[in-house]
């Protein structure tokens, strides 16, 4: 492996690509959690997005429909979660777990006939610039539109939460649902919207895996990325920009691990594959040690059930 400058450019480009599903899912979950809802169904929503995106691509042969459809399917499955937690006041943790188990099973059932079908090439933007500019070419150009969207998303999310009235409402609902409700805000409606938005982003994250990154349908292909995305939200202390940084670190570990395997590093493959998961634990420990910092940033009503007396 020669460490010349163009190789590093390609490496950074691939790290960016592998962090996309994490950015999308974590940004979506961040909004959900900011409204006070803890949805542990990220993995389930992602895998549903992955299979529905891939299935729609095979059936319609249209990538646009596939992408939009994956987001819609994420929304549809998150409605189950929203209805249970918001309208039937169920426990967020248990409901999220059920959503993940249900989603993994349903995706494998739906995907039975799509195993082994090759994916379609996803159009990339500025491919000529990628080749012609050394170093910066592979970093900045030659990616899918979803990647550009994913990298803009944390900044948009930050702007939304900090500078818009709607963002203020979301934060108010998450920090103090009772006062928000007394101000005439429909807490349940706001939370529903945030849950559905989270579902859409997780669906898109799944579709990125099955349509662009891998691109094919493999059972259980999200392989814990949904859970890592959940950990990223804690890691980022609920700040969108830090989600981006965290996702790049995890993308980096994934790619590093693949390269170490490829050059025959003298460590068993399984230990390298375990790195992202171990890293998640270590990062969580480091971040959570300062309990005051965590408390200060956690949406105060996170995971608590809210209902309005009638």
């Amino acid at each position, binding site marked *: 492996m020669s460490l010349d400058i163009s190789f590093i450019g390609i490496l950074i480009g691939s790290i960016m690509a592998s962090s996309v599903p994490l950015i999308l899912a974590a940004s979506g979950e961040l909004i959900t959690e900011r409204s006070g809802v803890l949805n*542990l169904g990220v993995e389930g929503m992602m895998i549903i997005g992955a299979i529905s995106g891939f299935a729609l691509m095979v059936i319609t042969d249209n990538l646009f429909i596939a992408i939009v459809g994956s987001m819609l399917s994420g929304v549809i499955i998150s409605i*189950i979660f929203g209805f*249970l937690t918001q309208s*039937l*006041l*169920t*426990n967020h*943790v*248990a*409901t999220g*777990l*059920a*959503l993940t*188990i*249900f*989603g*993994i*099973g*349903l995706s*494998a*059932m739906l995907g*039975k006939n799509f195993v082994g079908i090759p994916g379609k090439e996803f159009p990339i933007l500025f491919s000529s610039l990628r080749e012609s500019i050394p170093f910066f070419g592979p970093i900045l150009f030659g990616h899918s539109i979803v990647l550009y969207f994913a990298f803009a998303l944390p900044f948009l999310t930050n702007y939304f939460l900090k500078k818009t009235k709607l963002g203020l409402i979301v934060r108010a609902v998450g920090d103090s649902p009772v006062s928000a409700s007394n101000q005439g805000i429909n807490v349940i409606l706001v939370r529903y919207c945030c849950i559905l938005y989270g579902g859409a982003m997780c669906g898109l994250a799944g579709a990125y895996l099955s349509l662009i990154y891998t691109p094919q349908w493999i059972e259980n292909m999200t*392989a*814990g990325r949904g*859970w*890592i995305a*959940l*950990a990223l939200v*804690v890691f980022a202390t609920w700040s969108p920009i830090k989600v981006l940084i965290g996702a790049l670190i995890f993308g980096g570990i994934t790619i590093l691990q693949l390269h170490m395997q490829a050059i025959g590093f003298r460590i*068993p*493959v*399984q*230990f390298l*594959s*375990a790195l992202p*998961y*171990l890293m*998640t*634990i270590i990062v*969580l*420990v480091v971040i*959570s*040690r300062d*309990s005051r910092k*965590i408390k200060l940033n956690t949406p105060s009503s996170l995971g608590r059930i809210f209902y309005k007396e009638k």
Partner: protein
Amino acid sequence: MALYFFTPFIAIILTILGGGIIFYILGFNPIEALKFYFITPISNLYGFSELLLKATPLCLIAIGLSFCFKSNNWNIGAEGQLTFGAIVGGGVALLFYNQEGFYILPLVILAGAIGGMIFALIPAILKTYFNTNEILVSLMLVYVSKLLLDYLVVGPWSNPEGFNFPETRQFSDSSRMPLLFEGLRIHAGIFLALAAVMLSWFILYKTYLGFQIKVSGLSLKTAKYAGFKGKTMILVVFMISGACAGLAGVGEITGPIGQLHRMISPDYGFTAIIVAFLGRLNPFGIIFASLVVALTYLGAETTQIFLQIPKYTGQVFQGMILFFLLASDYLLFFKVKILNLKKNELRH
């Protein structure tokens, strides 16, 4: 209170209806498919033995989880604790692969329980001393333990005469659970599960520890006010839970499997979460729930054989059970509200 134990039945009925609808959408006669799913698997003695075989690990793990869930500790990594328990227990069994002796099986079982316990202590210690979220840590460790198992069966522990198959040697007969009946796979591990049920009932309802666990689950503030040592309790419930999962793992490898390989558990550790809830975190409720959920595994296998419906219907059914169970709790909530209203009226 009666309704509290009645709603799981509502959830099961709704799940069966929901399953019928799914089969109908997939283009099957729903009545016939449901018959294949819920009745065919247990219509003979062999099927019934298989039901108990699958219910055993589910029951064991769920009993352990009930300690965690009752005290508001979200251990969702039982699958990892099961795997690590199986690795440690399996390691001991492999040490004695060419020996016989009555002491081997107890050693293997003990090693499995300790393995699961140690693995569960990781999220517990990180939670108590570093304030780390136990949900995420216990879950990440599932992936780590499965990769470790994969490494061992492919690498250092693989069978030298195994033509590079990813599996270890067969355990010696002394490391295997005794079979209860000739020709059936049901083994002595079921007594471990029953012992766990009895013991957990005793601990939860007859000891000070059980009282602490229940109070902490209902109100952390009250527990603090009462001066309970929260940290010790968290460590203890995780250890109990890990030991049970480790026992389940060891029961699988010394029971029906007889060696270590990659697929020692069809996600029993995750499914047991549903069992724990369906059984209302009550030891005897969990026995019943483990039988119901074990049937979803068997049903999924039978419908795959007879109707070529992929076996993942099992997970879909399991997810649905939990959804419907949580949803039917709304009835309880309503009941509480109505009672409160009546009380208020009386006061006026």
